């Protein structure tokens, strides 16, 4: 029997999603009528990035995030499956600190997240 977890979209008025342990969070949101950013749909391109506030996910085949981005809490919703109840900020509004100008940060690889 499939286990289902509660995933709360904090910056979408706290809307709750019931997400199966083997279902990508992006797909569960779409099923609930919520269109979140998406592009490659296989974990290679960063467009669907979101910020994990609490909880844990597993991200099979997700390659688009570097160590700094992962440590800052970003996840890829097209491949992320919950392993417990989670709270997320989603959409481009959650991308603060995701992107950096590489020439401005060279030599200072992992500054504190803005």
């Amino acid at each position: 029997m499939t286990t289902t977890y509660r995933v709360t979209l904090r910056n979408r008025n706290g809307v709750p999603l019931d997400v199966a342990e083997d279902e990508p969070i992006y797909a569960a949101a779409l099923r609930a009528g919520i269109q979140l950013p998406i592009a490659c749909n296989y974990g290679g391109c960063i467009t669907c990035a979101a910020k994990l506030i609490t909880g844990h996910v597993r991200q099979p085949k997700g390659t688009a995030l570097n160590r700094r981005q992962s440590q800052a809490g970003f996840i890829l919703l097209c491949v992320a499956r919950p392993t417990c109840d989670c709270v997320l900020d989603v959409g481009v509004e959650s991308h603060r600190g995701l992107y950096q100008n590489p020439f401005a940060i060279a030599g200072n690889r992992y500054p504190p997240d803005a």
Partner: protein
Amino acid sequence: MLDECCGPGYASPADAMKAPRETLLYTVALYVGTGVEKPDYLATVDVDPESPTYSSVIARTEMPQIGDELHHSGWNACSSCHDDSSMARKYLLLPGVRTSNINVVDVSDATVPKLHMVVSGDEIKAKTGLSGPHTVHCLKSDIIISMLGDADGNAPGGFLHLDKEFNIVGRWENDITGMNYNYDFWYQPRHNMMVSSEWGAPNTFMPGFDLEDVGKGKYGQSVHFWDFEAKKIVKSIDMGAEGMIPLEVRGMHDPTSNEGFFAATLSSNVFRWWKDGDDFQIEKVIDIPTVDVEGFPVPMPSLITDILISMDDKYLYFANWLHGDLRQYDIADKANPKMTGQVWIGGLLGKALEVNGVTVQGAPQMIQLSLDGKRLYVTTSLFSSWDNQFYPGMKDKGAQMYIVDCDTAQGGMAINPDFVVDFGREPNGPSRCHEMRYPGGDVTSDIWM
């Protein structure tokens, strides 16, 4: 002359230059990475100064799927089919780099482009093991598209072959031995040659630009010369630090010429290439110095992101996307190009923050030149994730399109004061405009057999 019964395009570059002035222009416009959760679209822009809607978007053709990242585009037919009256330049192919979908738009009614069909990215991956479509060139009745990744988004990719009904034929090349990465290509059929360049694997460049990836060798620094009929590489040249990330490759339009240019984007050098008997040579001819910027721990390269050659093969134009300038060079002496014009639009050096009443987001990036060589159209977006790194304001304020008037007699460039299309004011929200094409063909798509 056979012109009365002919197919698309023009009999020669000289004939193309005599075509009527362009009145419409197509540009892709993107919502990827902007916060507007809608599909990308093709924007039709009125560029007829006599028209009441000059300098505005007059049609928007939405793609069926969200998240394509439309990028480059190409015609089903160009002047290479000029002798084939059964062909028509009727369809514009719009690949989505991130979804691998190839959207085909019917421009039979030039002012109202309509979606014709989609070659599904999933089908392309399943049938050819390729993803990440980029450059589209027609080749007589066939179409070949450079693909930057394998089905999982890893290097080196290859070339997709479509027939004229857009059915997947398979992979075009017979052998890619020597190719580390893929990007752009140009072919010169009369010399049985093709040149291809290297960006990186989709899984490397799609998330953004990371200098650590450069250090790990995950970006290209080689160009490849092909035996076009045998569909295999005959010579690869590793350019080392001088040739990092070679992108757009252009050939002379004169079909008897076996020469051209390309830019190494990250190294910010322009190289010329030529066929030398049975061999191929390259030589660096322009070197744009880095600039020390206060607060930046490493010097800033200019980042030459697009380059093109005028239809008469007399001028070379290129864009420096980080510094913010567009340049014109006289290439009468190809080994010693002479700079004849320069304008500034946006950029990180802050030399032209506002142009024609609009605060510029980004800087000169994609460029397209009118057939007569007098109007250079320019857009300011590069690629959504890279825009978000270097010009983060663009996602909220959109990109811009300008015209730069070019003096083809004496040399020289000037920003046209009467034209600006601000994609920050699009009805569904700000979007990013990128590559541009004219309905009648242009200097970056037409090749002569």
